[in-house]
């Protein structure tokens, strides 16, 4: 069964304390690995798409990387406004739906 697993479920950091969020996937025929940010009461906001192992993308304090089994979202010197739930999702060739398979998310809190 195609699955996406995110860890940790929740993470509390001090402002400026760098860390990484993990997304492991067991899907066949990965077409793309997506990272979204979701604020309370809002819809997921697109951050990055990674298509092949070794690919990296950066945006401000965030950097996403991809291997054949997992993806990492590295957050460097985070600020309180980076607090949110970060969702990982995989698009794979196994089904006809072309929908995303989502992980449960990592709830990130940055304390000032």
């Amino acid at each position: 069964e195609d699955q996406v697993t995110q860890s940790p479920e929740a993470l509390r950091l001090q402002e400026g304390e760098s860390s990484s969020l993990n997304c492991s996937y067991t899907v066949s025929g990965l077409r793309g690995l997506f990272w979204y940010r979701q604020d309370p009461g809002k819809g997921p906001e697109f951050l990055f798409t990674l298509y092949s192992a070794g690919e990296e993308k950066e945006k401000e304090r965030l950097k996403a990387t991809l291997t054949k089994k997992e993806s990492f979202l590295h957050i460097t010197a985070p600020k309180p406004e980076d607090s949110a739930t970060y969702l990982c999702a995989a698009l794979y060739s196994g089904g006809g739906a072309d929908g995303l398979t989502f992980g449960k998310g990592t709830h990130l809190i940055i304390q000032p």
Partner: protein
Amino acid sequence: NAGVTQTPKFRILKIGQSMTLQCTQDMNHNYMYWYRQDPGMGLKLIYYSVGAGITDKGEVPNGYNVSRSTTEDFPLRLELAAPSQTSVYFCASSYLRAGQTYTDTQYFGPGTRLTVL
């Protein structure tokens, strides 16, 4: 450019009532999707559409119906509401370019929070 819009933002239904959740996108995307998000769970795909007049089931379609008469609109219909349909519903859209085998990034609306009592 509003992107993906959804109405209503909130709704409370009684068991057995019906309603339609509205979704509109102004990005000329051919693919549209409906997901539901339950606490502590990942988003689950309910239905999707690859273009006007073409829809198909996702992972959790039971209790829902969809139609797509235009490129812009993709309403989700609940016929006999049940407590198990209490959830937050998100509509999304993406674009499949000619010659590609899979779509570009999916963009999401703000969601509809539905409670069935």
